């Protein structure tokens, strides 16, 4: 269970974070949430798919790393074998949380929390979070920037998904995979963009997507599907 607490330079003065990647550090995940602002980088490495969150039923975009639970085909002996890590992975073990300010009615201030139950937490090795006299390290500054980008991205995701749904661009798909050992596997429960319907969009719809900065991420999703092939290859190489 996650145990997020507000990060502060007194209690967490000596806190360090292990930044390498392995199953033991919790990187054995099949997918991770991604946000439209990073789709360009995500599509360079991973297929982008959509899935309904089991608790809300609402769609979220995901980068796919494997074909079954706890399978991350990018994880190797020497770490995470990809040129880009999604924000939601790289920011770990930090989280963003809202903190109410003294003024009533004002928007909650976004503050950095840390999950003390994360296997990345260490007091002896890894990146220091605070400087000797309580200042913020470059590492924490970067983590904080990632969190803010992720937070803004998640807010934009809802509008992006609503736009795709309004234009009827999402559809469920099933991927049947035959591996080189002859075994059959099926990936189900995910959704993708229907490319034919994207190509059939009229000028008004395209202009509207473009005006809201949704056109680029939409095509990034389309482009990302080539990585299903590379994902299958990675799986085959493990046989």
């Amino acid at each position: 269970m996650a145990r997020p607490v507000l990060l502060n330079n007194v209690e967490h003065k000596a806190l360090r974070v292990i930044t390498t990647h392995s199953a033991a550090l919790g990187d054995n995940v099949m997918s991770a949430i991604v946000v439209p602002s990073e789709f360009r980088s995500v599509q360079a490495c991973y297929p982008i798919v959509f899935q309904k969150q089991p608790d809300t039923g609402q769609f979220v975009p995901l980068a796919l790393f494997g074909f079954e639970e706890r399978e991350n085909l990018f994880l190797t002996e020497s770490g995470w074998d990809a040129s880009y890590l999604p924000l939601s992975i790289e920011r770990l073990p930090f989280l963003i949380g809202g903190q109410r300010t003294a003024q009533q009615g004002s928007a909650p201030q976004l503050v950095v929390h840390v999950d003390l139950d994360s296997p990345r937490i260490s007091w002896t090795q890894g990146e220091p979070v605070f400087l000797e006299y309580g200042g913020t390290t470059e590492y924490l500054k970067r983590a904080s920037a990632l969190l803010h980008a992720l937070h803004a991205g998640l807010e934009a995701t809802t509008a992006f998904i609503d736009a795709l749904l309004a234009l009827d661009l999402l559809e469920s798909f099933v991927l049947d995979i035959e591996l080189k050992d002859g075994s059959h596997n099926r990936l189900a429960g995910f959704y993708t963009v229907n490319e034919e319907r994207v190509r059939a969009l009229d000028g008004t719809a395209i202009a509207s997507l473009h005006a809201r900065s949704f056109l680029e991420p939409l095509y990034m999703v389309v482009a990302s599907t080539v990585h299903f092939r590379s994902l299958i290859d990675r799986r085959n190489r493990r046989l």
Partner: protein
Amino acid sequence: MSNQVKRVVIVGGGSAGWLTAGVIAADHRSPQGPALEVTLVESPAVGPIGVGEGTWPSMRDTLRRIGVSETDFIRECDAAFKQGSKFVGWSRGEAEHYYHPFSLPQGYTEANLVSAWLQRHAATPYAELVSFQPQLCERGRAPKQVTTPEFAAVANYAYHLDAGKLGQFLQRHCTARLGVRHVVDHVARIEPADNGDIAALVTAAQGRIAGDLFIDCTGFASLLLGQHYGVPLFSVQPQLFNDSALAVQVPYAAADAPIASHTISTARSAGWIWDIGLQTRRGVGHVYSSAHMSDTEAETILRDYVARGAHATDAATLAPRKLSFRPGYRQKLWERNCVAVGLAAGFVEPLEASALALVEFSAAMISDQLPATRASMDIVAARFNDAFRYRWERAVEFLKLHYLLSARTDSPYWREHRTSASVPPRLAEQLALWRQQPPSRYDFFRIEEIFPSASYHYVLYGMGFRPEPGAFPERPDNPALAERYFGEAAALAKSMLTGLPAHRALLNHLQSYRLQRI
């Protein structure tokens, strides 16, 4: 005078009127706009009767056809999910019960389930052996998950709804999205054409509304078909005695009280009590035969029911509303250029929620078969009359079955229900046959039967009906096959009980989140 049918005028703004308007208007759109002019005239003085809160799974298709969102519908119509009915006290007048779920038995068309049940599982109630759904109902589960798309089911379902709110909800959709013209005015008189058709309605304030086809959705008043054309009501009171109902709205005992996802129908000495769970309240009513019970007595029984049970409520504060009806249907539903839908066509007690289902069937057939010209209208009318006479007859028989198979002897009402004079001849014939073979598609051979043969299975065997000894012999391969399906039903029940949310939890969730269309 144009011979083409271009203007459809619907009279009456209850759930029947707006469902019919919605189906016809949605079906007759074209890229250039509406291909048909649909007008709904609603009297400001006449409120909808607001009964008929149970539906059949066909309602999902109808709502989708009209083009509304299921999430909006659930939010705005106080709707809840209905997975079937639980009948309490119908066979012996005690606490015994059986289920009539909406899901077909597992392997229904693949194996002789009835024989396998009687041979090896006779101690288990039929529905509980062949279907996963009674368990979902008993445990208060929703029939779908938050990730299930709109109108799609994990377990087959219909709705319980506030019929008044359904009318208003559909009105907004029909007028805003489907181009239905809504006229709120009193119909002062009907203007006949020379050939005997209806030429126009003359309204009190807005004058003449001409039309090519008039649809009478005026409820029990039956303004056009009954009053104007004088088509008489064919009474079915000799078969189905109930002609009165007392209805109350009962608040939940607590904000988080479980909501039943099935209708609970509890038999009483001269009728039965419906108990329907909506989101914000329960609808409870006692339907009875005025020839067998006084209103006072009926009210006492209703109050007693509300005061007891799992959701005990302070019954003293409730003010029941009385409804009277003549059980029956019009001898003809479509006369000249006028067709009746809903209560204007007929009504037989709310058992098995056939009222809205018949509205949907009627709206669908009128829309599908809408005659292009007046010349072909008489052909369509004759077929419509034939189709709906058939459906009303089947509905009456299916309802009668619930009474006929009872072993109750506690009142003249139940004993009289078993006299042969009160049994429709075709039903008597069916029963003779069903002693030797189970109900099947040979008994119900129309394309769209109002009640499928599986429903007869659930009621027959739930009520304790048993075939003659040695009837329905099994093929040698049947026992293994049937066992597989029984096992499948049990396994599905187990996995669905784990995977499906509580009924109230899903309804609460839908207040904050929308179901996806895909």
